[in-house]
């Protein structure tokens, strides 16, 4: 079998701190496909519920929406903490698969809870905690399954399937509600079925990393390794660049307010970005593998800068201009979304990958969270023009400041 061809011996002292370039055998396409399909079905499941949950809360539960927003925010913070925990656990147990599986199982359990008890709080808890837990070990599994020379391509395959699932989920939810109006339990049931399929695909299709040598040998901790500095600086650069990046939700709000857009078109903005993303994700992944994942991170923000400039300078946001903004935004996502994870995986020794990926993902997420809050504050306080100007200046500054931070990571990436 394929896996048997991989080196399973203990890592020698000499290579234990080297980037995992010594791995041979090419990419385990089957494992990457299974990981992608897992995310595809899990995202269908999640987004089906996310799309209808506000409607459900208002119609059936009489839930206070302000409370819902508060819980949502608090849980987003909890997700970030669990992201670090998931990465650390995967490294400590040297087995990312069970940790990621536990995360997926929690999300599936949350659907079951929603079907049986109709309690949205339970859903939020289970789903967000599960998501936080599984992200880093799952990305570590993708990295383990990929040949180092095609790391970013493997992540691109995974993220494409992930995004496709996120697009399909709401569509499926509305088809179900169209066929049987008002039957939210049916939506939750279909969501549960999709989550279970994701679990099965993951359990059956993804080999445990222990068999791949990543988990064997002496226990390695990132903080004891030479790679620590590069990973730390990459995380800092991610936070810096992320700190100049408003969330897609806010960007769509800017488009909606600036352009004369019908509110019913609002969900289509997401579809526009996602389509642009899907088209370029694979070529961008290949390009990243050729020129170096880390090296691509600063240029990745040029499309975003372009989108900001169009929004700031356009007198009136016509439909073609909206499409340009969405396209640039989709490209920006293609150049960062899987690339950060691929970059972190490429510069971290296999046994510490969970921690490395979690650290970089955490940095970017915290940065983006702060950016959205700051942008919203400036927008409300001093107006949209000021907010966009601040965002542009901030982004250019971050791009310049991130370069020296990325140098160490770039060296390891090229090794």
């Amino acid at each position: 079998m394929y896996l048997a061809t991989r080196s399973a011996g203990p890592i020698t002292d000499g290579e234990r701190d080297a980037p995992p370039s010594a791995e041979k055998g090419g990419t385990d396409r089957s494992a990457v496909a299974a990981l992608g399909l897992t995310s595809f079905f899990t995202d269908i499941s999640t987004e089906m519920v996310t799309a209808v949950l506000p409607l459900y809360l208002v119609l059936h539960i009489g839930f206070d929406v302000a409370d819902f927003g508060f819980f949502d925010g608090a849980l987003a913070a909890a997700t970030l903490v669990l992201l670090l925990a998931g990465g650390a656990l995967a490294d400590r147990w040297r087995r990312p698969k069970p940790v990621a599986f536990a995360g997926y199982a929690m999300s599936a359990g949350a659907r079951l809870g929603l079907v049986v008890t109709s309690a949205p709080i339970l859903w939020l808890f289970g789903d967000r905690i599960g998501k936080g837990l599984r992200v880093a070990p799952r990305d570590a599994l993708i990295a383990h399954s990929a040949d180092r020379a095609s790391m970013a391509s493997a992540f691109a395959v995974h993220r494409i399937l992930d995004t496709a699932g996120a697009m399909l989920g709401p569509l499926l939810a509305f088809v179900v509600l169209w066929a049987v109006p008002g039957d939210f339990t049916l939506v939750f049931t279909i969501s549960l079925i999709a989550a279970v399929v994701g679990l099965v695909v993951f359990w059956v299709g993804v080999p445990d990393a222990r068999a791949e040598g990543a988990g064997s040998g002496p226990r390695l901790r990132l903080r004891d390794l030479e790679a620590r500095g590069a990973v730390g600086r990459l995380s800092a650069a991610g936070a810096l660049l992320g700190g100049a990046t408003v969330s897609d939700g806010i960007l769509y709000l800017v488009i909606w307010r600036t352009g004369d857009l019908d509110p019913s078109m609002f969900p289509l903005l997401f579809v526009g970005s996602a389509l642009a993303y899907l088209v370029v994700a694979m070529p961008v992944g290949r390009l990243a593998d050729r020129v170096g994942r880390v090296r691509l991170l600063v240029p990745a923000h040029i499309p975003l800068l372009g989108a900001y400039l169009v929004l700031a300078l356009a007198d009136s946001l016509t439909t073609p201009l909206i499409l340009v903004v969405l396209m640039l935004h989709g490209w920006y996502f293609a150049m960062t979304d899987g690339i950060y994870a691929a970059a972190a995986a490429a510069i971290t020794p296999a046994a510490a990958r969970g921690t490395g990926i979690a650290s970089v993902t955490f940095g970017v997420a915290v940065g983006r969270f702060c950016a959205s809050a700051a942008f919203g504050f400036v927008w409300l306080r001093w107006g949209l023009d000021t907010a966009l100007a601040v965002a542009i200046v901030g982004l250019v500054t971050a791009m310049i400041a991130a370069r020296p931070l990325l140098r160490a990571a770039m060296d390891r990436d090229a090794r």
Partner: protein
Amino acid sequence: MKHRWAIIGATIVLALLVGTGAVFLAMERRSAELASREVAALEELAMVAELPMVAEPPADAAAPATETGLQGRLTAPPSSGGAPGDGSTTPTTTTPARAASTATPNGVSPAPVGGGVFDVGELVFVSRIPGDDYGTLGAIGSDGTRRSYDLECARAYAAAGVLLCLESAGMFVPAGTATVRSVNDETFPEIWQRPSGLPSRARVTPDGSQLAFTGFVAGHSYLDIGEFSTETIVATPTTRGMRAEHFSVASDEPRFGAIDGNWWGVSFEPGATSALLTYGTGPSIEIVRADLRDATIAPLGIEGGCPSVSPSGRYVVVKRPDPRIDAPLALILHDLETGEEQLLNEPRFVDDQVEWLDDDTILYALPRDNELIQPVFDIWALDIGADATATMVVPYADSPAVYRDSR
């Protein structure tokens, strides 16, 4: 693990089968449920049809039913040529500033006097019989027979050869359309259409010269939770009209400049040159008067919302919270001449703009059940006398409109 992709493939196929099966089962269950509700509704309607279509049996057997019975009043031809009860003070020939000309955008004109599918005095409504007819236009004739038309309206109003039909765009967006149609024949040819919000209120003047409608453009939808925003259009059969918020307000009071100000629920006054409507900002809700000739609005100092002016123009029924009533809003009869007010005896929550059957009786719809899908509404009648009680006059119906024609 040799066959892992076979197992994965089998799982996906199984999930597709189970998922599709679950949807079809739910569809079956839903249509069976609707069918049984429809059967129950039709049985109940058949029972009602065997009774005389008079809500209150005439107390005096000698009195002819057509005079005292509600159904008789429903279909009795209006005196003095329609709604303006005291025709002496209301010149029926008054032409408002933006009155209807005969030319309409696509060559369709309102039905001529005495023509068309509705007779004067008939009650036009939206059917709330569960099943396929749910949400279609209906009418009830002088003999009490119920007619149904192949036209869907969430809310409708008809007068003087014109039908105003509001439709909802779907269940996920706070949007809809308002369509002005001729009642010439049962195809209800379209005169014009424009986008609106979620259907709320509709009115046409008895002379067919003016019409107005209100839709929710935010709130009532998941897109804008916590917001409430209405759009009210005053138009004519030939022009697509203007928004109430573009009327100039003849008042310096700061509340009329409020950023959260909303206009809704137009009710025309006799003569079709003025109308009452609601202005709300924050918790304050009041009735204002719009002059349609110069598009100005003046405050009236009447607290409340969703007015409905009586055919004579003397009274207006408004909705406002009242400590004597548990429901969030009570129906208050306000005398526009004396300013006297009287609480109407309806303890239930009327989420409707009431309609006047004649100068003594109002009509409104009330929900019968809490069904999420195809909830049942009934039309009730209430005398404006102090100790009257409401009676159900048309079961399984909503959006009452007494067809008038004063042309």
